[in-house]
């Protein structure tokens, strides 16, 4: 059973023919070529497929693409501008909060969703948000530092605007 749906991804509208049993993750990666969103466990525990839908961090592996019509989807490809990284991305680079990098897109999107809602999160709020993501290379200490740095960058950016 196929359906033609319109998906709003990173501000662009895409008309795609999808099978109803395809997940948003499969459509993003295989149909739209947006391979920044990674496929990890595929059962909702690792968080590497995190995308932001209507302002909330969600798991693309557990959403049917047909259910995402009419919702605003942001993927890792959609957060930086043409020549500048998003403050969260910059903070991850500056803090070295990356090892192999596979979990990073999901963690960056999770952090962005957190900071959009809570610009000055405390440690517990950061921990709670990151609890849905896994970094299997290293710990989450540098990642937490990066989220705090990103919060500072974003506030500095807002001040200079």
């Amino acid at each position, binding site marked *: *059973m196929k*359906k033609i749906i319109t998906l709003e991804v990173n501000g662009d509208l895409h008309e795609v023919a999808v*099978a*109803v*049993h*395809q*997940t948003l993750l*499969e459509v993003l990666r295989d149909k739209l070529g947006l391979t920044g969103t990674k496929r990890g466990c*595929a*059962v*909702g*525990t690792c*968080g590497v497929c*995190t995308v932001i839908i209507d302002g*909330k*961090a*969600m*798991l693309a592996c*557990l*959403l*049917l693409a*047909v*259910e995402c019509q009419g919702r605003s989807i942001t993927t890792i490809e959609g957060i930086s501008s043409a020549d500048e990284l998003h403050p969260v991305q910059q903070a991850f680079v500056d803090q070295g909060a990356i090892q192999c990098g596979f979990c990073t897109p999901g963690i960056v999107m*999770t952090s962005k969703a957190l900071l959009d809602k809570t610009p000055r999160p*405390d*440690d*517990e709020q950061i*921990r*709670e*948000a990151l*609890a*849905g*993501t896994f970094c299997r290379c290293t710990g989450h200490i540098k990642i937490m530092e990066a989220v*705090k740095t990103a919060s500072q960058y974003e506030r500095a950016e807002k001040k200079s605007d």
Partner: protein
Amino acid sequence: MRLLRFEHFKPSSLEEALTAMQESAGNVRVLAGGTDLLVNMKCGLEQPGLIVSIGSLPELNTIAEDPSGDLRIGAGMNLSELAENSLLAAKAPALRDAIKSIASQHIRNMATLGGNVCLDTRCWYYNQSKLWRASRPACYKTGGDQCHATRGSERCHAINSADTAPALIALGAQVVVQKKGSQRQIPAEDFYRDHGARHTVLEPDELLSGLVIPCGNETGKTHFLKISRRQGIDFALGSIAAHLAGNGSTCHSARLVIGSLGSAPIVLEKTAQVLVEAGLSQESIQAAAEAARSELGVLTTLFSSAGYKRDLAQVLVKRVLHSFIKKPTTQKRTRR
């Protein structure tokens, strides 16, 4: 792990959904948040021919106080929204605490209350990929005639890990179940069956549409707590919800419900009796905890040993009762 083919129907009203459920009964599942169902489908544990998507039905996305003061919550309400809902926080903070303890923010952003209430039971031998399961004969839950977790058992012992279940039972909630042309309301306690393979009383054409929490003339307080291996995304090793009504150290009524230790939430009647008779004090808490230990009945070694579960129940009862006599501690947060 990919999903296999199915038909997808997005009804525009609850009535349409119930019609579809009736027409395809036995071959249909409702999809709300999808965080439990789609995982099971990916593992080949369920293969419905039709998915009825009810997540965005307006009838199921409401929370309101009815004229008698009771709280009515639609089954389709999102868990993150409920966790932040001021009406729920005021009327049933224990349910709010239970909701906050579920999985991760990502999952709560997608999952619904009805989905958690109906959460499938879990087992080491069940929640595995198709390939993994192929190395053993089928069990009760997968259509066979044995239980791998408890050899020689006559039923499935998969564990009910729904965190909202003990809270709802302790609160005396009613579950609203609908099918085409009829509706029934069941006490949350009777909604669950002590059978891992068929753990709720829902019929194949029925749908859980909402919950009613009596708050009208309730004076008591309810507390919930959960113990799990990890503080983050994890199922409970054991959880407890307790509802006490009384003033000071006397106790008119008590309800204690333990979750995640068996195939259904366990209502601790004798333990509650101890509290009603002896009131709430350091001594009665000790006596209640010991009563809970002996009241649990036969437990299965699944996710943790039966002995550990007994110890855990004792600790859960103690901790939850202490939270009634302790002044609520404000959560310490270290500011950066």
